């Protein structure tokens, strides 16, 4: 049952609606007539005749020109019973309706609507692709968008057919038909599992876009292997050897992009560690690694975070020397360590470190580098006495007593 207040409300609403006025239909019933083509193409000039004009000569009338982007107001002096108004191209660049109204002393004298039709789609057709690169994992996707417009940027009609032709990295080529909807047309391009370039062409009634390019790249790599290319078997802390990975590939067998970082973690025979880095070229990461300082096993593992890791590569190294020669030169008051002879009866490399530790621990450890097979420790300033020491080269130690006289 309707309540009283509902009835009152209803009447009130009816009264409000009855007071509302519709805009008067656009007609030429005003004081003047506006004569021109009722349709024209964007960018074309527009000539409008306005008559009869019953306004004193020399007076000015205002003409408003409204299109979908806004309004321009023009002023025109009355110089006869009819006025010829020429609108330049700038008024007709936007497709849609143009409404011309004539005013004099604030009163509208007449109006006319003209439809501006878009031109043919301009070349090249606007097409946008994003993202420009995606993973070749069968899941990732990019979107191609086409916005066909005329030379003035006016969109084509809704449901205009658009053709997408696509060439994928695996060689397949196909075509997709679509239509514009609210100015644009778009297509999702799902990645395949083969890395490479996807090329896309978009066209509309013979008007084509530029070539669009989508890069499909490898995902994180799966496990891989490493091997030593060639290495000397001696822990001389001098020579370098190469470690190479197998070709790094993702789950879909795509080769990793250039520059993919690979970390190498090593455990040295002495228990110390190594952090080394490399990156892939043609899918292979290569690394120069120096022989360890001490004999033993060098363990290496490589990895790419988020992806795979390598096997643990173990390399055995032998000591390049089997004994240490040393003698104390009383004349020069120095210890001559050498000649240090390596595995092929050659001198150990220059720069090889010789460490001398005082067995009583009262004096600091001394370090010297080998030059031409010898390292010298100067004891000129050492007080007289016997000093038991241990000499270390390549991890091998030798006991010695310095008799400082």
């Amino acid at each position: 049952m309707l309540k009283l207040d509902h009835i009152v409300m209803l009447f009130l609403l009816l009264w409000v609606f009855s007071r509302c006025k519709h805009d008067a239909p656009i007609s030429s019933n005003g004081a003047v007539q506006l004569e021109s083509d009722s349709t024209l193409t964007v960018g074309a000039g527009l000539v409008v005749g306005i008559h009869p004009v019953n306004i004193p000569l020399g007076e000015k009338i205002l003409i408003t020109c409204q299109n979908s982007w806004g309004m321009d107001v023009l002023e025109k002096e009355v110089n006869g019973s009819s006025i010829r108004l020429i609108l330049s191209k700038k008024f007709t660049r936007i497709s849609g309706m143009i409404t011309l109204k004539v005013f004099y002393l604030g009163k509208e004298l007449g109006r006319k609507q003209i439809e501006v039709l878009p031109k043919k789609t301009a070349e090249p057709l606007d097409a946008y692709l994003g993202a420009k690169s995606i993973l070749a994992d069968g899941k990732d996707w990019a979107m191609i968008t086409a916005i066909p417009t005329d030379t003035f940027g006016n969109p084509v009609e809704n449901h205009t057919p658009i053709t997408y032709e696509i060439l994928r990295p695996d060689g397949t080529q196909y075509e997709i038909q679509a239509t514009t909807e609210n100015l644009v047309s778009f297509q999702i391009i799902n990645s395949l599992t083969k890395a490479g370039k996807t090329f896309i062409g978009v066209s509309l009634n013979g008007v084509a876009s530029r070539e669009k390019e989508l890069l499909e790249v490898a995902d994180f790599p799966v496990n891989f292997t490493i091997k030593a290319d060639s290495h000397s078997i001696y822990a001389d802390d001098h020579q370098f050897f190469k470690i190479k990975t197998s070709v790094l590939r993702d789950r879909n067998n795509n080769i990793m992009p250039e520059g993919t970082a690979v970390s190498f973690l090593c455990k040295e025979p002495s228990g110390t560690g190594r952090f080394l880095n490399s990156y892939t070229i043609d899918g292979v990461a290569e690394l120069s690694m120096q022989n360890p300082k001490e004999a033993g096993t060098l363990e290496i593992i490589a990895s790419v975070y988020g992806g795979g890791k390598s096997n643990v590569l173990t390399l055995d190294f032998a000591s390049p020397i089997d004994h240490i020669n040393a003698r104390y030169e009383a004349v020069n008051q120095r210890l001559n360590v050498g000649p240090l002879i390596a595995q092929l009866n050659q001198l150990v490399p220059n720069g090889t470190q010789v460490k001398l530790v005082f067995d009583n621990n009262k004096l600091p450890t001394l370090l010297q580098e080998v030059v031409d097979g010898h390292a010298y420790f100067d004891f000129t300033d050492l007080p007289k006495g016997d000093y038991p020491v241990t000499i270390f080269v390549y991890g091998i130690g030798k006991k010695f007593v310095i008799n400082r006289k």
Partner: protein
Amino acid sequence: MYKKVDKLLLIALILAIVYHGSALLINLEKTYDAYVHIFFADHYVRSWFEPWEYRWYTGFPITSYPPLSHQLIALFSFIGGLKFGFFTAALMMLCFFIVGVYRFAELWVPKRSAGYAAMFAVVASSIVQTIHIYGQLPTIFGISCLMNALPEVYAYFRTNERRRLITALSILGVTVASHHVTTIFGMVFFIVPIIGTALLDEVGVEDAPFFRIVFDLILLVFKKIKQFLIFFPLVIIEIVLIIFPYWYWSKNDPITQVSIPHGSRDSFIEVTSSGIMFFVIPLGFSLLMLPYVFKSLYTRRNILLGLSFSMLMLLGTGGTTPLPLILLGKNAFNILTLDRFTFWASVIAIPFIGDFFRRLLEGDIRLYLVRTVGKFGYYWTLSIPICLVGFQAIFITNFHKAQALQPPTVDIDPILKFLSTDQHDRWRFMTLGFGDQMAWLSAQTTALSIDGNYHSARRVPELTVEPIERIENSKFKGIQGIGSLQQFLTISEKYHLKFIFSNDKFYDPILYFSGWERLQRLDNGIMIWQKPDVPSLPSFLPKKDMPKFQKIMWGVLPLTAFFTLLVVIITFRKKYLLNFFPERENTAFRPQDSWIIIVWSLLVLVFFSYFWIKGFLYDPRKSPETLLKNYYHDLDFKLFKDAFSLFAPSALTYDNYILQLSVKDGLLASYGKLEDISIKVKERFPHKLKVVVKSNWTTPLEVYSIENPHTLIEKDGKWFIVPPEFDKALAPDEHLEKGILALHSQGKRKITTATTEHDDVLDRPELHILSAKLIQYGKEYVVVGELQNVDYLPAHVTIQTQLYDQYNVKLVEYNAKYTTNHKVLPKEIVPFRIEFEETAWVKQADVNPMKFNPTEFTPFEFRHKPTSFKILARAVVADKDLYRDVGIESLSFDKKITGDVINHGTDEVSVPELLTTFYDPDGSVRWVDHYFLRDAIRPQAKEHFSILPPPIAKTKVLQSATEKDFFINGLPQTSLAPTYLNTGRFDIIPQTNGKGFYRIIVNSYLGNPTIY
């Protein structure tokens, strides 16, 4: 009454044009300030009535400097360009100065002496220094006008003629329009003594008793009170009105600035170089003439000018005694450059030196000398002061040859071309190592520089609070300067600073480790550095506008004052140069007093000769201490021949020594500046010492404290250093072959000048932040974390962190600086640590810190404790600085972390930086540190390092961030999850204490990368 002007004035004018004109042609670009004034003039050329100058700092009002000299340069530049404008204005004002000296001198000495004074003024050391070393045109403008105004002021108070008042006011109007400081101090040190002297002359001072003179003087003041009431108010109105916008600016500009340390405030005994530059050179020959000047000034008539001269001399001694500080007060003492007082004192001395020469050449002193030492002796005596004056003029004119004032001239055309192409002027730029040529560059372009060369107008916060005139010369300012530069380089996007033109490789490591990259080397040898991912300047830049009437005043009134002066001088041209008062004979100095000058000059010469001979005969090998100090000094200044001469005889030859040094590169060898050394004797033996030298080096990145052991031996009473030992290791391979990654980003369209198209816009590489924590370390808050480039292209990353308090109010934001690698390869992981720095030396108490703490860090002062944070990481494609062939060997973690950094690639690493990451047991980052190695590493070579473990026990985790706190390229990280196959870490090592893991990577700066 004289009918003619002394012809020496004409000779002086011709001499000034010939001598200064020819010298200025060479010296203009070598002076300190000429280009700055040219830049200001260029502003008026481009927009006369718009006082806002956008090109320096973040914009500044040109009303911060009196405009007339600049406006005149601008006017003349319409004829022949800016340099021509400067040249013409300088010569014009020099001539006016010489005329002024002549007229001023006539108040104190005879006309003929005034002619000699004009001659001396041409070569007076202070004038030559002001023009040819400082390029201080406004100072010359100011003093020229003041010198010309003084006789008119004197005459006005003597005669009460309106003509004199008009002339005096019109000249003072130009003075204030050119250099307000001269006007203000000129009132105290010149105009007041002149008025006093005029009154003394009127009452007569010769024979009357002292109290009578005082009484008469007071009476006279009351009699002339009307003149006082007319003159001083009019002058004050003039001072206020003509440069009113300047006073308005200086009163209203809210920027408080730290005063800039200036050598004129040094103690000249402690810093002798400052004493020479700011006291000895400006006085020059006048220093020898002090007895004559003082004796001439301290007479009854001249006493007021004498007091003024004495006061100026005293203030000019800077910080040598505490008196200037007491007299001026702390504020004025720290703001004023005190050499200006010496300059004014030297100008006061000119008339009396002119008088001395007149008497020496054609007066009583000549007669006395001829009578005393004979004609031959006289000529010898005469030749000494003439030669000294000539020598000082030539020496100061060519001072830049003895002491480089500016870096070698840079051809700026390639830079201008670079700025004008490809819209590079849409970003701000900065120059490094250009000296004042940066002002010349700015004058030639409309591109904006974040730096500037006019300290009074510094508006950028980083510049207003640090006592550094421009960032450009920051390396000379120790850590303060470098601190300012680092802050600019770290948050360069805030200022749209994208390009740096570097003329000094000292700055290269700072630029690299702050995330800058080398773009190209121009034809003129200038290296362009760029910071990727910096937004361009907005179309409209903010400016501080001023009322239109002030703009018109500024553009019109100074020139009006100048043209008024021209009209006045032309009107009174017949009487302008004539003196209508009786000649003043200087009788205070008697010829027989000449011995005082001779003795004084000898004392001065002996004083300086002592230091010179002492330096000449100095043998650094006389003691171990002097030996080591000189050795380190020689190393610091790369005087390797001198350093080698201190070595004990050994098998090491000089050629070999130089060769060994030439292959040594690194932060210390190539970029270090020695601060101080201390020597500790470890062991003593007969004729032998074992010492440890602790030396502190400032490098662009850090201050290093190095301890080096040395063995010193004594031989024949002289000490020598046992030569150092050089690296003996040999590289195993003769040739290295290696495939390397090369990348070139070139876009995808035809070459065009059109703006960016959609196809040109590259995708931003995708990043993934693995973990991050907000850590409290003492009073400091830092954010540490780790991110991975999960894209397929190398990325240049900018990592910004914002801290929030418990109410979610943003407290501060800052970027990662050194403690990260800004270039990240695909799938590479880099750590980062972000510290929140306050702009250094913000507090008033920190004003002018002359000594710095090397470990000084100014943490941001938090009003609220931060409780949460966001990380905004963004990336662009990187195609440079991708060297990765450096690793760590023999790594152990015990009490210290030790190991060797090995270079297994093909380039020398100039500055290796270790980035150490420490993880919690769950694998999340707990702490990140960086450590710069001091030595370079050649291919197949290694350098040992030993660093302290992290201060984890002293840190507290405030928040561990989750994915929602991370934003990548503007998008939440939650929307960008990478498709990890597994998240196990095989690139980290367990810590020996079992509390987590650690990892070390090396960020390598290559000073001279191989060009492929």
